[in-house]
């Protein structure tokens, strides 16, 4: 007798567990990560075999782009508030409450002090489109030294300096930055260079 083949019905999948898992992952990432701070200019970091990781707190990042512009960044909002207030007092920048608050929420920036008020007055999207000229580092207008000094004062001298340079940045710019950090009034001889991990011997 021919065997009657059982009629196949289309398999149905109950998607509930998958959806549950998706929500769980989303919740996990919402609670554990922070948004990556917006960078004004993409920087290609050089590689090294150093495995030491950057300490999380109290760092000031000096970014050197490949066209020689210098940017500064401090993550802690509290330090940024104090920093803006000290800069305002010392250099009579004329910043009001709102501008100081905007400053404390910013990430990396690179404008000379003269342009700071104007820059803070722009809206978020205008700021992104604005072409920042970088902080002046020539010996005539050494604003980098001043910026760093007041940041350190605002952080009660608890700030580590980390230099994040593009691998094709001219050494001359980096040399000037290192020299400014070492000179009075800052006089810092210990700092960190941010690198990515390279496998094997460097090329």
């Amino acid at each position, binding site marked *: 007798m021919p065997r009657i083949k059982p*009629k196949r019905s289309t398999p149905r999948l109950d998607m509930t567990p998958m959806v549950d898992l998706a929500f769980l992952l989303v919740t*996990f990432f919402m609670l554990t990560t922070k948004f990556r701070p917006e960078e004004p200019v993409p920087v290609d970091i*050089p590689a090294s075999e150093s495995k030491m*990781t950057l300490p999380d707190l109290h760092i000031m990042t000096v970014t050197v782009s490949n066209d020689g512009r210098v940017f500064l960044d401090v993550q802690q909002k509290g330090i940024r508030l104090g920093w803006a207030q000290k800069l305002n007092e010392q250099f009579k920048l004329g910043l009001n409450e709102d501008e100081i608050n905007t400053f404390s929420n910013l990430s990396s920036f690179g404008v000379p002090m003269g342009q700071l008020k104007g820059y803070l007055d722009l809206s978020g999207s205008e700021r992104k489109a604005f072409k920042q000229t970088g902080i002046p580092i020539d010996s005539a207008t050494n604003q980098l030294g001043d910026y760093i000094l007041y940041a350190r004062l605002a952080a009660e001298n608890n700030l580590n300096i980390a230099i994040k340079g593009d691998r094709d940045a*001219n050494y001359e710019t980096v040399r000037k930055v*290192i020299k400014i950090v070492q000179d009075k009034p800052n006089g810092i001889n210990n700092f*960190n260079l941010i690198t990515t991990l390279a496998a094997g011997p460097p090329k």
Partner: protein
Amino acid sequence: MSEVSSEGGGGGKHKGGKPKGKKSSTHIDMTPMVDLAFLLLTFFMLTTSFSKPKIMQIIMPEKPKDTTQQKKINQDDVMNLLVGPKDRLFYYVGLHFDQVESTTYGVDGIQKILMDPKYKTNPRFMVLIKATPDSKYKNIVNMFDIMRITDTRLYALVDITDKEKELITKTPETK
């Protein structure tokens, strides 16, 4: 777990009229899969941390307050590394030079030279790293990295002299 039920439940088109055979439907119980997913998730949540950018710690020598206090450096204890543009690298030993040797960043270039026993056994051996203004930042980072790999303890980043700059521009590229 999984089961195959032979009642006519589940999907499948209902073909009216024809005598139907036994319909079987498969229900897969997803519980173990979800358990495993949660287990993996918990494992990773507890064991990993988000990767932070890596750093190289640099400690620069303090600027001497009084130049007459600088210690006398012996001729043989110093190697000068000149970093030039286009990834070029030169070196010479001693305080003065007539010509420089050219080398590469690779393992059999400067690293092999620095691992030479006559430097390794000398406790006063130091390396002075000098770079031209038009060299790239990655070359300097590479040099610091090589210092660490070859376990050279005493090294310093110093300014390049005009004579050295001239020499680098004058030496033709060998490649």
